């Protein structure tokens, strides 16, 4: 892994760099948000997928600092995931001009274990005691002078990050370089161990202090030139303490932390009001029987809140952006004298792409908002524990459940939510499962087909498709665990933070940072692909040149007709090329599958496409967009009991309206498909390629190789399964052809299984997951 550098994300950063370090749940990120507000940059650490957050802090003197929010870490010596490695490397590199350690004063003793390691490094250190309000409520105010004295005179400041209390003093302290621990720092180890460490330090001067300790404790390989030194040190520790080096050093650190904490705090009482409240809630939330329904209820609320509440604003975002960026822009370009085809490309294509990106914003923003609130409340850790016993059978931790449920709404935030999965292997598997979860975009396609082909039993068909998606996700996890992602499971071990009311500012900032990443990074891909795919229906190769043409002679029609041969095994002929065009466009965004079919069938009925550009009614469109908000607000209240919109399935008109399908589209579908080929088509829509935004999210989170794997794997799975369903259903009509198809499928599966189990894949996956970053 590359060493973490101090280079800020943004160019031309200010001089001093201060790193925020702390245990998970210490309130470090809340403090970071409180200090930097919106002046943050979110990126990735070099070579890995761990989120890197930096922010500018302007002090009262006018000087600026760069604050780096390091991943939450229990120990700089190791034992955690990739994020903890990052924090360790950064701190040890000396890249920061100073370290601010954030400590939950309610867990002072345990947090001081990290202080011990930071003192061992010897750099400038400032200790921030957070959550002083809770300490006051418990009557456990620490003696700051006694604590400073035990920590060698470093600056110790009490704060309440959520309320901004003590931040003025902290900002003042950050004006100057803060001091290192002085000569009065009490010994960090008992004399016997201290002597052994001094001898070892003298003989291994080329190693950093933390690397030396990691090696001594058996957490890192011993360099060949120092084998004797480490062996002698270990033997000496066993002689002096009767314990091996790891146990003896850990015991010494715990003893130091206990002594330091007890010098600063009055005796701890077990009957703490906050803990009692937490314990009462946990009795139900972690109950082996009640925990599961409570978890499902919370996720149901998350789903309803995120996607139904997001839907209130979705049409407003889509319609108003279409009025401005498609029709408005098209009008301006047309008035400027640009030819029709370029107006279609820029306004319909690029503007349309921007409109699609913006239409995603409300549901994704709500998802991030509610997820951040759940994270802050302390519930997510409980949910992971509740689900762990079920997911463990698949080799996944309980934390994998949350992204899967979010995936029913949209796969993109689901993939981004896999960051809560600590084990890197499990995180890859969880992310690769997401494209099979039936997102709300696919439901639009299901509804249109249900309206035409499955009247009376549409609900069962849609339910079967949802189950098939879940099954495909589970099979994928099973395959990955038996293929390149083999390896020992990491059993769940996590801290259950006390329940707290989420801080509004912190939640909004957290959600905003994630949303900004989505809009800027994932959105760019959608916008560019949108330009390409929306350009294709309007232009074609006519008379030896690329010109604006009718839909039947467009590049889209020519390409789609050529592709229908691929879909022949699932009963799709050349006359259903609009459905194939829908699939091609759906590779960009699944929402547009029906939209493209609408466009094609309407164009075939010779609608004037340039009319909206020549005479745009932007004012009226914007007014109509605003009016969608109260209308959808009323729908939201009405649909609380039907978050997925299944209620529409029995009603053809309601289904078509919900899917956004025009009557021309429904007539076109009815003419081209049978019930069986329609079901095979829906299976294909469910399983084939992750959409462009999902692909971009996979690429960003897992790297290009896994994103392309997902693309090829899902396409092959969709083709083989949809084809097999159609061939089995029509076996009596053409038995030899169907038999040949099934033999081919079996052969492909067997060859894949042989290739999949090759040991070389495991080493490759190891290198890729642990040693390379996204998109590299």
């Amino acid at each position, binding site marked *: 892994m590359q060493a973490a550098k101090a280079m800020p994300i943004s160019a031309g950063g200010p001089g001093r760099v201060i790193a925020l370090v702390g245990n998970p749940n210490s309130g470090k990120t809340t403090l970071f948000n409180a200090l930097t507000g919106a002046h943050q940059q979110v990126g990735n650490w070099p070579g890995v997928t761990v989120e890197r957050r930096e922010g500018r802090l302007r002090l009262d003197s006018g000087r600026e600092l760069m604050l780096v929010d390091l991943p939450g870490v229990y120990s700089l010596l190791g034992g955690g995931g990739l994020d903890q490695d990052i924090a360790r490397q950064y701190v040890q590199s000396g890249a920061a001009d100073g370290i601010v350690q954030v400590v939950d004063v309610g867990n002072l003793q345990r947090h001081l274990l990290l202080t011990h390691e930071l003192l061992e490094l010897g750099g400038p250190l400032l200790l921030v005691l957070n959550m002083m309000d809770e300490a006051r409520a418990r009557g456990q105010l620490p003696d700051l002078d006694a604590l400073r004295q035990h920590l060698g005179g470093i600056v110790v400041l009490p704060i309440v990050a959520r309320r901004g209390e003590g931040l003025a003093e902290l900002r003042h302290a950050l004006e100057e370089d803060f001091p290192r621990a002085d000569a009065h720092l009490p010994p960090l180890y008992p004399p016997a161990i201290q002597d052994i460490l001094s001898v070892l330090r003298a003989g291994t001067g080329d190693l950093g202090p933390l690397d030396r300790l990691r090696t001594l404790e058996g957490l890192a390989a011993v360099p060949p030139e120092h084998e004797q030194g480490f062996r002698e040190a270990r033997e000496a520790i066993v002689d002096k303490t009767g314990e091996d080096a790891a146990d003896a050093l850990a015991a010494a650190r715990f003893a130091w932390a206990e002594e330091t904490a007890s010098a600063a705090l009055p005796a701890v009482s077990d009957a703490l009001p906050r803990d009692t409240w937490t314990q009462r809630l946990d*009795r139900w939330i972690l109950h082996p029987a009640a925990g599961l329904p409570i978890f499902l209820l919370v996720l149901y609320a998350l789903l309803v809140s995120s996607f139904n509440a997001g839907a209130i604003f979705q049409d407003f975002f889509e319609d108003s952006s279409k009025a401005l960026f498609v029709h408005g822009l098209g009008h301006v370009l047309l008035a400027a004298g640009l030819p029709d085809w370029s107006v279609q490309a820029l306004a319909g294509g690029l503007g349309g792409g921007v409109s699609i990106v913006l239409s995603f914003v409300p549901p994704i923003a709500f998802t991030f908002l509610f997820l951040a609130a759940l994270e802050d409340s302390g519930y997510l850790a409980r949910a992971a524990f509740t689900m762990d016993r079920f997911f463990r059978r698949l080799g996944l931790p309980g934390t994998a459940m949350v992204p899967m449920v979010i995936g029913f709404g949209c796969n993109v935030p689901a993939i981004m939510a896999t960051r809560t999965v600590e084990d890197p292997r499990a995180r890859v598997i969880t992310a690769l499962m997401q494209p099979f979860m039936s997102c709300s975009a696919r439901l639009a396609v299901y509804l249109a087909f249900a309206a035409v082909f499955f009247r009376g039993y549409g609900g069962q068909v849609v339910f079967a498709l949802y189950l098939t998606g879940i099954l495909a996700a589970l099979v994928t996890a099973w395959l990955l665990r038996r293929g390149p992602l083999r390896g020992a499971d990491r059993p769940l071990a*996590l801290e259950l933070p006390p329940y707290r009311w989420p801080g509004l500012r912190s939640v909004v900032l957290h959600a905003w940072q994630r949303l900004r990443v989505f809009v800027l990074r994932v959105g760019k891909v959608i916008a560019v692909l949108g330009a390409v795919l929306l350009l294709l229906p309007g232009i074609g190769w006519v008379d030896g040149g690329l010109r604006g043409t009718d839909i039947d002679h467009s590049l889209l029609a020519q390409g789609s007709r050529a592709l229908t041969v691929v879909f022949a095994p699932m009963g799709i002929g050349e006359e259903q090329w609009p459905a194939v065009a829908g699939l091609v466009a759906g590779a960009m965004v699944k929402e547009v599958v029906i939209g493209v079919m609408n466009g094609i069938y309407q164009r075939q009925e010779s609608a004037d496409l340039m009319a909206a550009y020549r005479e745009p009614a932007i004012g009226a469109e914007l007014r109509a967009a605003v009016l969608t908000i109260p209308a959808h607000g009323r729908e939201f209240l009405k649909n609380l009991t039907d978050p997925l919109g299944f209620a529409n399935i029995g009603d053809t008109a309601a289904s078509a309206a919900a899917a956004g399908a025009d009557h021309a589209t429904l007539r076109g579908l009815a003419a081209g498909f049978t019930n069986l080929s329609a079901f095979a088509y829906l299976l294909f829509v469910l399983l084939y390629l992750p959409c462009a935004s999902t692909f971009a999210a996979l690429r960003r989170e897992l790297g290009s190789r896994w994103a392309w794997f997902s693309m090829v794997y899902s396409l092959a799975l969709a083709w083989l399964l949809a084809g097999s369903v159609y061939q089995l259903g029509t076996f009596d009509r053409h038995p030899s052809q169907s038999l040949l198809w099934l033999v081919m499928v079996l052969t492909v599966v067997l060859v894949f299984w042989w290739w999949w189990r090759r040991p070389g894949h495991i080493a490759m996956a190891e290198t890729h997951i642990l040693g390379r970053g996204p998109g590299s």
Partner: protein
Amino acid sequence: MTQISPSLVTLGRAIQGSAVEICAIQTSPQERRRLLGLGLRLGSVAHICQGPNAQGVVLQIGSVRIALGRPWLEVIAVRQRPCPAAPTLAEKRV
């Protein structure tokens, strides 16, 4: 690494509501370091808040609550200790 002696019980046999002393952890140095970070080490005294059951166990060490998945129940050895908060039988009689 410390071996589990016959006089100890695995964490899976601990009793809910009781206090236990962690006596052995049979796992890799990396996983032990992970538990250390959570405050769980040899000699720690933990209260069994919930479980052990099919999910695992919830412990409290000091004021920190720790959830351990089921696989840990068989690799951590503990010794039952009288719970400081619970009165002994003799105290109850008095």
